[in-house]
């Protein structure tokens, strides 16, 4: 079965992204497809490559990256909402350049895109599951 996941909360603040990750992992291990994970609200913070948890804690961002969720063309399907991301200072190289900001913090396993990607995921998946607060 084809799943889509929406994650609404940031890592470490709320369990939502951990639960979503465990769900996605279990789905993949049981032969299902995660066609897209869409990060919205503070969920966009799951994509920061600057995340440095202490050694005895789980690494939420790397956990997501380890799932290797991509489309047929190899594009990441860990999708960060652009409107929510820009508001919260989550930038990829292209957005940083466009806005004349030095540096960028988006982990390469993720990509930034529009809210339409969430609706499209709802249309194309068999089930969309929301994890939030």
């Amino acid at each position: 079965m084809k799943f889509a996941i929406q994650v609404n909360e940031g890592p470490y603040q709320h369990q939502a992204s951990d639960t979503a990750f465990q769900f996605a992992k279990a789905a993949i291990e049981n032969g299902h497809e995660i066609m897209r994970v869409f990060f919205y609200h503070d969920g966009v913070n799951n994509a920061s490559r600057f995340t440095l948890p202490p050694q005895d804690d789980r690494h939420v961002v790397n956990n997501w990256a380890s799932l290797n969720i991509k489309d047929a063309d190899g594009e990441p399907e860990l999708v960060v909402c652009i409107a929510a991301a820009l508001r919260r200072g989550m930038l990829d190289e292209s957005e940083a350049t466009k806005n004349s900001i030095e540096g960028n913090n988006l982990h390469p396993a993720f990509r930034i895109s529009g809210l339409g990607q969430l609706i499209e995921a709802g249309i194309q998946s068999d089930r969309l599951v929301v994890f939030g607060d």
Partner: protein
Amino acid sequence: MLHTVNKSSFERNSLQTCLNTIDDSSVILFIEDGVINAANNTKSSMIADLATQGRVFALQGDVEARGISSKLADNIKLVDYAGFVDLVVKHGTAVSWV
């Protein structure tokens, strides 16, 4: 439908609102702090009937993490993450009561 609830009824009314709008064929899964609703406490009567019908589940990892494995209310079924996935597959549209 599968209704997930991730809040304790002592904190928010998510479970009550879920119960107000759940149809006869749907099931409830408690996750995160929602598993507090699966413990035997003064609010257990909220879900007693549904539990008797075998329609109340709780995520095992969250139950154990919160130290309530031995204090579960009657007829609560425990599932792991794979069981969560199966519930979503089996029950159609998933509704999250956050």
